[in-house]
């Protein structure tokens, strides 16, 4: 499958690929002959990050409070560990067929998500999120603007995205979701007819694969009625930095970090998506293991 389709340059949420490296700036004079990255900072990119030791706040009381919160998180984790896989009893893990992951009913549910747009590479799209009517849904809305930022490097622009905050355990350790019991994603949304991309990020151990993303499309209808969209995990294809990979593999559901929605359909104009809840479903009628390249690639001649 030689689909090397370039979706959008910078469609990955790691926008600002040419942010200046801090180390490089401190060795600037030494490396002025060969620059590995350009030192141009895109207008929307964050200004130079303060180094972590410059952020140090030597307050004993704050340290004790921080330690107390982390220890209480650790205690909660241990209690959940004793209950069973995922903090629930084993019987729940074995018998469950549906699970609601994110439900948008209050501001703190909204705080579990991060929104971003091509502003970080210098574009002009706008994206906002708020609670919908009667606090029954999240409303993600804004305007897509495909005008390319004039920095000589970017060729495409115009994307907005919403991504769940990665789960963090005690002492800032990474926590992963285990969705291995399920085989489809179930969303109750009300869109405006525009196609969205659903992205699953399985935070890999090595940084070589940090741009790997499993993607599929969510086509919304746009009517006044709510839609319940079911996307089987067998349909998700592997892409890296926005480029669909030649070697396709199914997404392994035992170690998932974040879920995200991106709009980047190259059409200028307003967009709107209301999400009621995002859940998982174990569809017993769905038999497919993986939708792509089901044939044997290495048949002996």
């Amino acid at each position, binding site marked *: 499958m030689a689909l090397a389709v370039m979706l959008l340059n910078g469609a990955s949420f790691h926008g600002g690929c040419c942010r200046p490296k801090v180390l490089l700036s401190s060795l600037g004079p030494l490396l002025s002959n060969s620059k590995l990255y350009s030192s141009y900072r895109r207008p929307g990119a964050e200004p130079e990050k303060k180094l972590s030791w410059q952020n140090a706040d030597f307050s004993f009381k704050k340290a004790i409070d921080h330690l107390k919160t982390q220890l209480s998180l650790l205690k909660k984790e241990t209690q959940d560990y004793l209950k069973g896989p995922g903090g629930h009893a084993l019987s729940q*893990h074995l018998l469950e067929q549906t699970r609601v992951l994110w439900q948008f009913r209050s501001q703190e549910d909204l705080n579990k998500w991060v929104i971003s747009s091509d502003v970080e590479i210098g574009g002009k799209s706008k994206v906002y999120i708020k609670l919908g009517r009667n606090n029954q849904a999240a409303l993600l809305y804004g305007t897509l603007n495909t005008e390319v930022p004039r920095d000589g490097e970017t060729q495409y622009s115009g994307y907005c995205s919403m991504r769940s905050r990665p789960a963090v355990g005690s002492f800032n350790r990474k926590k992963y979701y285990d969705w291995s*019991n399920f085989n489809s994603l179930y969303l109750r949304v009300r869109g405006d007819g525009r196609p969205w991309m659903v992205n699953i990020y399985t935070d*890999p*151990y090595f940084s070589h694969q940090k741009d790997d993303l499993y993607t599929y499309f969510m086509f919304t209808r746009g009517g006044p009625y709510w839609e319940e969209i079911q996307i089987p995990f067998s349909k998700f294809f592997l892409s890296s930095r926005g480029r669909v990979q030649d070697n396709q*593999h199914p997404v*392994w559901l*035992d170690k998932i970090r974040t879920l995200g929605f991106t709009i980047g359909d190259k059409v200028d104009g307003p967009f709107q998506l209301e999400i009621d809840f995002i859940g998982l479903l174990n569809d017993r009628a769905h*038999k497919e293991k993986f939708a792509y390249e089901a044939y044997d690639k*290495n048949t002996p001649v």
Partner: protein
Amino acid sequence: MNPQAKLVFIASLLLGSTITISSNHWIMAWTGLEINTLAILPLISKSHHPRAIEAATKYFLTQAAASALVLFSSMTNAWHTGQWDITQLTHPMSCLILTSAIAMKLGLVPFHFWFPEVLQGSPLTTGLILSTAMKLPPLTLLFMTSHSLNPTLLVILAILSTALGGWMGLNQTQTRKILAFSSISHLGWMAIIITYNPKLTLLNFYLYALMTATVFMTLNSMKVLKLSTLMTAWTKAPSLSAILLLTLLSLAGLPPMTGFLPKWLIIQELTKQDMAPTATIISLLSLLGLFFYLRLAYCATITLPPHTTNHIKQWHINKPTNPLIAILASLSITLLPIAPMILTII
């Protein structure tokens, strides 16, 4: 996989293991270990899935570092004693470095972090090779140097391994990770007795390899990668699920199954060495292992779930089950009565 390539890799694994096991010079032992590491990497990353590649990378990094440490310890010993004989590893620092290097190779705590991830990323048959065949060369090196190793260090590593192998395996839902933690736990039992009676270590290893091979091959025939698949496996091979229950209890070390034999003999030897509290601690810690073995058996045999799955792969088994499973299963369940004979031949 291409049959010729598979032949090369399997032959390399056999070659590497044989070189290490039959060597008297440290360089040959190191050579065999390196050949093993390199030969198994394509088997782990066969499917080229990003997670499989990640597992292969982790395996390579830890095993290469451990081999380098083995070479370093033999080198310091050669510097101090002037010879490279494996059985004459007398310098205490070399023994310490060798113990930690072999602990990294085997997956003893605190060098166990790679093991569950590597096993999770590899296919079930490669997991079997990693758990059994890849443990033999490092164990033989420990066996050959066992008279000069530091017993305290080994006992500490062993108790920590049994503890962590049991504790971390408790909440796993992926069968390969559960088997990885079971392996770590059994390695603890193997390591605790090596300085007192190395033959019991080898006996423990042989019986562990037998039982683990049965479990891995059973899971492979049912294509079971997670607990929920295990629940519905009884419809495909009901008698195999029933035997899996007994094999798992044997792995847990319950009498009257085979798995009880090594534990009994190890506890007896530890008591003879005036280490009864140690024996008590390690026996209590393997109760944690019993919990997750029972959980596996519960999902496979004891409960009948209300649903069957409609996955095509689970509908029917493509090829008939390997008759080797029957032989291995009967051996791993019924060898305890001939324990006196086994004692005379180890």
